[in-house]
C-alpha cells in the first residue's frame, strides 16, 4: 500500500481539550487520486497536515511509500516535505513579491532532482506568464502556479487543500483537469480535501470524515473527467 493511515488520533488543548481525530484509518494505492470529504471541523485539514508532515499525531501511524512518517524526527520530516510531498493550498499561498517562475524556483531551489521550471510552466499552461507577479494573475492562474510549484520537485504525493475552494465552476474545472493530468503524466498520488462532493467522481477513493472519524469509504471503478463535473 502506498499510503496507509492507521488509528490516527490528534487532540488540541486550548484550555478545553478537543479530539480532532479519533482513530482515523485509510489506505491508497500508488498513483491513485483520493478525496477526503467532510464538513468544517471534521478533521480533514488536521489529517492532511499530519500526512504532509507539518503536524504531529498523538497516536496511530502514517506510512507513505513504506516510510513511517509518524516516527520521523523534525529533521527527517523536513527532508520528507522537501523531497516527497507537494502542497496545493486553497488560497494558493504564493509569495507575492516573486514572479511566477521565481515562485516555482522557491521549491526547485531546495529539491535534489527538480523538473525544469519551463517544463512545469508549460505543463500548467503558463509559459507566457512566467515573469508576472501573482497579483497580475487570475485566481485560476494563481492556483496553476501553486500546482506547478508543488509538482516541480516531482513529489510522490500531492496534497491539495480545497484547491477549488476560492474559484468559480469553470476555473475549478480547469484546475481539477490539471490535477488529473498531473496524476496521469507524472504518476503522482494525489490526496485532495474538499467540501464539494461533486469532485468525488474524479477520485479512485473517497473518504468521508465526520467528527474526526472516517464515516464512509468509497472506491470508484470509473472516474469522471474533471471537465464533466457539475455543481
Amino acid at each position: 500500500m502506498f499510503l496507509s493511515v492507521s488509528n490516527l488520533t490528534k487532540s488540541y488543548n486550548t484550555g478545553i481539550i478537543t479530539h480532532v481525530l479519533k482513530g482515523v484509518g485509510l489506505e491508497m494505492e500508488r498513483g491513485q487520486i483520493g478525496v477526503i470529504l467532510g464538513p468544517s471541523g471534521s478533521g480533514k485539514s488536521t489529517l492532511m497536515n499530519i500526512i504532509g508532515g507539518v503536524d504531529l499525531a498523538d497516536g496511530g501511524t502514517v506510512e507513505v511509500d513504506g516510510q513511517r512518517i509518524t516516527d520521523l524526527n523534525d529533521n527527517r520530516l523536513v527532508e520528507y516535505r522537501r523531497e516527497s510531498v507537494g502542497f496545493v493550498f486553497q488560497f494558493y499561498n504564493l509569495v507575492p513579491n516573486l514572479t511566477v517562475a521565481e515562485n516555482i524556483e522557491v521549491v526547485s531551489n531546495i529539491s535534489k532532482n527538480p523538473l525544469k521550471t519551463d517544463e512545469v510552466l508549460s505543463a500548467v499552461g503558463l509559459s507566457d506568464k512566467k515573469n508576472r507577479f501573482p497579483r497580475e494573475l487570475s485566481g485560476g492562474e494563481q492556483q496553476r502556479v501553486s500546482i506547478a510549484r508543488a509538482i516541480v520537485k516531482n513529489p510522490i504525493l500531492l496534497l491539495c487543500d480545497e484547491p477549488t475552494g476560492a474559484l468559480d465552476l469553470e476555473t475549478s474545472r480547469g484546475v481539477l483537469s490539471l490535477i488529473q493530468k498531473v496524476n496521469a503524466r507524472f504518476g503522482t498520488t494525489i490526496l485532495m480535501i474538499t467540501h464539494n462532493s461533486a469532485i468525488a467522481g474524479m477520485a479512485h477513493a473517497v473518504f468521508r470524515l465526520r467528527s474526526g472519524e472516517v464515516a464512509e469509504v468509497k472506491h470508484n471503478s470509473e472516474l469522471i473527467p474533471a471537465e464533466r463535473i457539475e455543481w
Partner: protein
Amino acid sequence: MALRKRVWRTIKENKGRYIGIVILILLGSFYFIAATGIANNLEKMVVGFAEEYRQEDLTFSIDKPIEDIAALEGESGALIEAYRQYDVKVPDGELRLLSSGAKVNIPAVTSGRGLENPADILLDPNFLKMHGLDIGGQIELNGKTFNIVGTMAVPNYVYIIKNLYDVLSTSGFGIGIVSGAEFEAFPEAVTVYAAYFEDRENINAQTIKLHGLLSEKGYSLSEWLDARSNKRVSMPWANISSMKSMSFPVSTAFFLLSCLIVGVMIMRMVKSDGVVIGTLYAQGYRRRELTRHYLAIPILLSAAGGLAGALLALPCVRPVVDSMLTSYILPAKGITFSPLNLALAVLMPVAFIGLSSFLIMRKILKKSAVELMKGDEQKAKVNFIERALRLDRFKFNIKFQIREQVRSVPRLLFLVLGVSAASMILLYGLTYNYSMDVVMEKGALARYLYPLEYNFKEVRNLQQDGGIPEGAEPYNAFRCYPEGRESVEFYLVGTEPDSVGFKMNDMRGNALSRDQVNISYPLASRLKLKEGDTIIIVNKLDGKSYRLTIDGIVEAYGEQFVFMPLDEFNRMTSQPLGSYRTVLSSHEIDFDESLLAGVMDARDPEAYKDLATPTTLIVTSVTALAVLIAVIIIYLVTSLMIDESRNTISLLKVLGYRGKELAKLILNSSMPAVFIGFWLGLPFMLAFGNNISNYVAEMINMVIPMIVNPLYVLVSFVLIFAVYKITKRLSGRKLAKISMSEALKAGTE
C-alpha cells in the same frame, strides 16, 4: 473598554520590538538632557562667574602707574582695576599674592569668610589642599603671618598658571588674595592692570582704543593680553565650546533621529494592522475612537521613554560637570536644568511620534471598512522597482534576497539611513578623537624642533641686548585677524631666514623656504587662500593693517599662523631691525626671570594629554551610543522584516526549508543595505564633522580638522557588522518561532 486591554496585550506580544523603541527614545532624551544639562551648567558656572564677578577683557602692565584711572575709564569706557601682585616662595612651591579686586576680577569666596580684618588671607582651594593648610590656620609669607579665613575663586585665575604663556600649571604654585593695605609689607610688588569694557559689544575695537589712549598718554606697555588669548581665562571657555560643539548638535540630531525612526516604525506597525482596523471600523467604531486606540501605544511608549531618559540623565550631569572642571577654580553652583529642555525631552517624542501615528491613522481611515478588511494594506503591492527588475541570470537565493529588500522601499531606506546614522555617529566619535590626537601629536607641539620658548615681557633687540646663544633663535610676533573677519585670529610670526627651530614643510612634505610668507594649511583653507593670493591683516593690538602676499602653504594640523622673514616683519611694523619678543631654544637658557612673561616647554608632550580628558569622555559615550543605536535600528528593521514576511517564512517552512536556509534567505538579505548604509555614513560624517568644525572655528577660533584614520574606519565597519551578526542571531530565534500553521491557515494571495 475592551480595546484598552488590547493595548497591553499588543505590547506584550511584541515585547522585544517595543523595548527597542522605548530604549531608542530613552537614549535620545537621556543624551539630550545630559548634553544640554552639562553644556548649560558649564556655561552657567564659567560664563555666569565671568559676568557676575566681572572677568577682565584684558590685562596689561605699563612702565609707570596710571595717573588718573577715573579719567582713563571715562575716555575708554572701561572699568580699570590696578591690582598688586607679588610672588612669595613657600616650602615646596610659590604663592602669588594678589590684592583684592573691587571693580574687575572680584574674588568669590567659596568657603570660610571674606577678608574682614588685617592679615586675613584667602587661598585658592588647590593650594590649600596641596600644602596641607586649613581654614582657620595660618601661613607665614616673607616673615609676616596671615590668617587663612577662606578659599576663593578669582575670574582672572580660573585656570591657575604661573606665567601668561604657560600651558600647564606649575607644581606647588597657587594664588592668595589679601587686602591692598597688606602690600605695604611687600614693597617689591608689581602693579598689573585689568580692564573690563562696560559695552559688551565690539571688544576688539575698544581694546584698540584703550591701547591708543595709553600710547597717546606716553605709557609704555610691557604686557598686553586679551582674555581670549589668556589661558588663565580662556581654558574653561574652550571646554564649554568643545562640549557644546560636540554634544549639543549630536544630541539634538540624535534625538530627532530617534524620534524619526520610532515614528516610521509605529507608522508601519499601524499600517500592518489594517485588517483589524477595518473590522473594528465595520463593527461601528468611530474614527476618533480608533485613532485614540491606535495612538495609545505610541504615546505610551514615547512618554515612558522620554520620561525615563530625562530622569536617568538628571543625576549624571553633576559628576560629568565636576570632572570637566577639576582643573579650574570656580565657585560651586547647584546644577539646574532648563524646564523647557525637560519638557522637550518628554513632549518632543510624544508629539513627533503621536503626530506620525495620527497622520497614518487618518490616511488609513479614509479607506472603507470593506477595503481595509480585504487586507489591502497587507497585500504587498508590487512596486515599480520590483516590476522593473529582471533577475533571470541570478541564482534563486540572490533573486529572493534582492526582492525581499526592494519589496518595501521605505523599509530599505529606513535601514540604510538608520545604519548610516549609527555609522556616522560612531565614525564621528572616533574621527574626532583621532583628529585631536593628530593635532596633539603632529600639531603645534610637534612643530617646535626647538622645544623651549622664552617669551619676554618687552621687545628686545639683537644688536642692543646682545646676541642669542648657539642652538637658539629669535622671533617676533603679534596677534592679528584678516580685515573684516575678527573671528579668525592668528599669529603673524617673523623668523630668521635660516631658522631651524620650527618645522615648516609644504603639503608634499618638502621643506619650505623661510625667506618668504608662508601660511598654515588650516588657516589658508579657512580663508580660502592659495599661493599668490593677497591678504590684509589687522594687528589686534593697535588696529594697524598690513598687506601680505602668500608664497607658500605649510602642512599643519589645526594650527593657524603666518610666517614671514623677521627683517621684513620688523620693517613692516616699523620696529628697529633685530627686534624680537621670543627666543626659541633647543636647550635651557639662563635668562633673567624678571624679564620673562613665560616659558613654554614642549619637551614632554605627554604632559599635555590631560587637557584632552574631557574629549575622551565624550568620545567614549558617543561610541557606546552609536553601537546601541546600530543594535536597535538593525534589530527593529530585521524584526519588522520578519513580521512582514511571516506568511512567506511559514510557507517556506511548510515547503521544506530548514532554519539555516531560511535565516540565510531572510536575514542575510539586509547585508548589502547594512554595507551601503555604513559607507554612506562616511561622507555624511565628513559633511557633518566639517560643518561642526567650521562652526567651532568661528566660535572659538580653534580648527579641529576631520582626519579620517583608515584603521578606525575598519574598526567601525567591523563593529557595525558585528552588531549586524548579533542582531541576526537574536532575530534567528524569532524566525524559528514562526509556526507552519500560519501559512496553512492564511490566504495571502
